[in-house]
């Protein structure tokens, strides 16, 4: 009983310290009401995409923001998660829970192997070796002709026990629950001794070693956790897209989730989700804005998006959370929990 109270207190303290994160997640729960009355069902789709990419970015952020390991290959785990659905369905397994457990197992094992090998290197070499592993997997799936090769394979939404994912909003709330659970889990991890050690390793690895801890163990563990979260996002992504192709694990996707994290705020819990919201809204609205000014070039919105990214790097240090801090909203962003 006291254990339960203790847990409830931990959750309450966590929610209080990460008000922005939980406000955003609550917002996603209420969003379908808005789209229903505003008659904008298309935006549910966008919201699902935001939640999925946000979830993947939150996973990567554990490694990137808290652990300081610049992994440039996390799209591979998203892709593996998605292919877990595709390949199981190919062999007749349509149970969604099975897909999830499979994806967790495969991504965890793969994360362990890749993490163990890649973490022997540091700096630029680490960035490149993670990229290399992702490319390896990308080309593996490109050449697996029986699973569609380059063209990919179409997928049915998975069976989730009694839930029919083809009913409206079922998939939306499945994704929402997954997002909330991932956020809750990450919140505990980041606030635990493990999380503190991880941040300590980021700021000074040799001191952590001098304290008698083995930094590699913490790094690999966080790598595996983030791989699993990305895999989970990929599994749901497959159901959302009803289609999977090697494109999902293209190296530009790794760049995309990195951008989302940095845009939102590195090493913060709410940052990746906030980043995903802004990133995908830009993706929706930039073509419209450009189309209003120069209709012929609406589809060339990347020409604005690229320089915008450079601006964010040059002038917007700390991402959107950093901006919120400066604007005096430090409490909701809770920058205090972040490193730097």
């Amino acid at each position, binding site marked *: 009983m006291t254990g339960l109270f203790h847990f409830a207190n931990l959750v309450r303290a966590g929610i209080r310290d990460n008000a922005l994160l939980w406000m955003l997640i609550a917002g996603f729960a209420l969003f379908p009401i808005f789209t229903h009355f505003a008659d904008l069902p298309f935006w549910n789709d966008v919201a699902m995409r935001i939640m999925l990419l946000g979830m993947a970015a939150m996973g990567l952020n554990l490694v990137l923001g808290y652990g300081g390991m610049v992994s440039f290959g996390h799209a591979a785990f998203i892709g593996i998660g998605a292919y877990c659905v595709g390949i199981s369905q190919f062999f007749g397994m349509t149970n969604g829970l099975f897909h999830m457990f499979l994806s967790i197992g495969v991504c965890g094992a793969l994360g362990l192997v890749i993490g163990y*090998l890649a973490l022997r290197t540091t700096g630029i*070499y680490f960035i490149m*070796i993670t990229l290399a592993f992702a490319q390896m997997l990308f080309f593996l799936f490109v*050449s697996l002709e029986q699973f569609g090769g380059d063209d990919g394979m179409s997928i049915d939404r998975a069976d989730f026990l009694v839930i029919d994912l083809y009913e409206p909003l079922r998939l939306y709330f499945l994704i929402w629950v997954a997002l909330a659970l991932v956020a809750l889990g990450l919140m505990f991890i980041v606030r635990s001794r493990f999380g503190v050690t991880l941040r300590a390793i980021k700021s000074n690895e040799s001191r952590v070693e001098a304290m008698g801890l083995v930094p590699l163990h913490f790094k690999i563990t966080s790598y595996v956790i983030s791989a699993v979260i990305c895999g989970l996002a990929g599994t749901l992504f497959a159901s959302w897209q009803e289609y999977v192709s090697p494109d999902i694990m293209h190296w530009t996707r790794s760049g995309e989730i990195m951008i989302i994290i940095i845009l939102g705020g590195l090493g913060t819990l709410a940052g990746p989700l906030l980043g995903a919201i802004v990133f995908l809204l830009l993706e929706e609205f930039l073509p419209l804005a450009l189309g209003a000014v120069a209709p012929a070039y609406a589809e*060339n919105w990347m*020409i604005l*998006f*690229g320089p915008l990214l450079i601006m964010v790097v040059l002038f917007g240090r700390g991402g959107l959370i950093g901006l919120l801090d400066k604007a005096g909203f430090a409490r909701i962003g809770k920058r205090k929990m972040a490193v730097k």
Partner: protein
Amino acid sequence: MTLTLILEQTFNGLQAGVTLFLVAAGLTLILGIMDFVFLAHGAQVMIGAYAAAAITQATGNFFIGLGLAIPITFASGYLLELLIIRHLYRRDHMEQVLATFGLILFFNEAIRVGFGPAALYSDLPPALSGFVEILPDTPYPAYRLGVIAVGLMCALAIHLFVSKTRIGAMVRAGANNPEMTAALGINIKILFRLIFATGACLAGVAGMMLGPLTSVQPGMGEPLLILSLVVIIIGGIGSVRGAFIAAIIVGLVDTLGRVFLPSILRLFFEQATADGAGPALASMLVYILMAVVLIFRPTGLFPAKG
């Protein structure tokens, strides 16, 4: 027959290798000396290819296209460094990845706006479109042979420049220890800018030469960028010699692997298994090579920093 095929494919591998070297030579110095993760190097390849193809189409002369494209790529690298890159040297690697990723998006889209999404094709001049007999009864395209020759000449020139000249000594010193080099009174900012522009120019040359062999289209540089990163990691960041050796290895392994791996696998496995696994394994081969190198030598074969 088989010998002819092996010889032909070895030459193709060499041609891929020297092209990779041209892209990797500048990039390894950018990564090594400036400690800068520059992902938009592939865009320089694209700029070179487009400049050459567009000028060739406008003037009708292949060599004028090449001649004018070289200063254009040099200027584009110089301006890029001056306007954007130099503000990013002190940032951490991740921010550099992000900013140069933004540059890729911008350049690809700018090319798409300027030249349209379709690929440009440029014809070879008659002088280069013939075949040369490298062995009796073994014809080989003259143009590819020319690419190999130009690539090897560039490699030799870079080698002589880096190892024999005063500026080359500065470059080597910079790769070994940039702070100390600056402390010795060498204007490292100008050095950086020149290395950057020269690297862009070399990547542009690779793009120009690739133009008639592949299609010139937006985003054409990215596959080359990824492969040249592999080359740089295998060779050791900052080492031009390492980049050359690694580029030739990667070019040969990639080309020969794609052609011969399926038939080699067929010796050990059943036909169906070999045909399924062959292409998959072949396209993974260079990445496997890189992972193995990094596992045994985490700083590459010829590390420049000492």
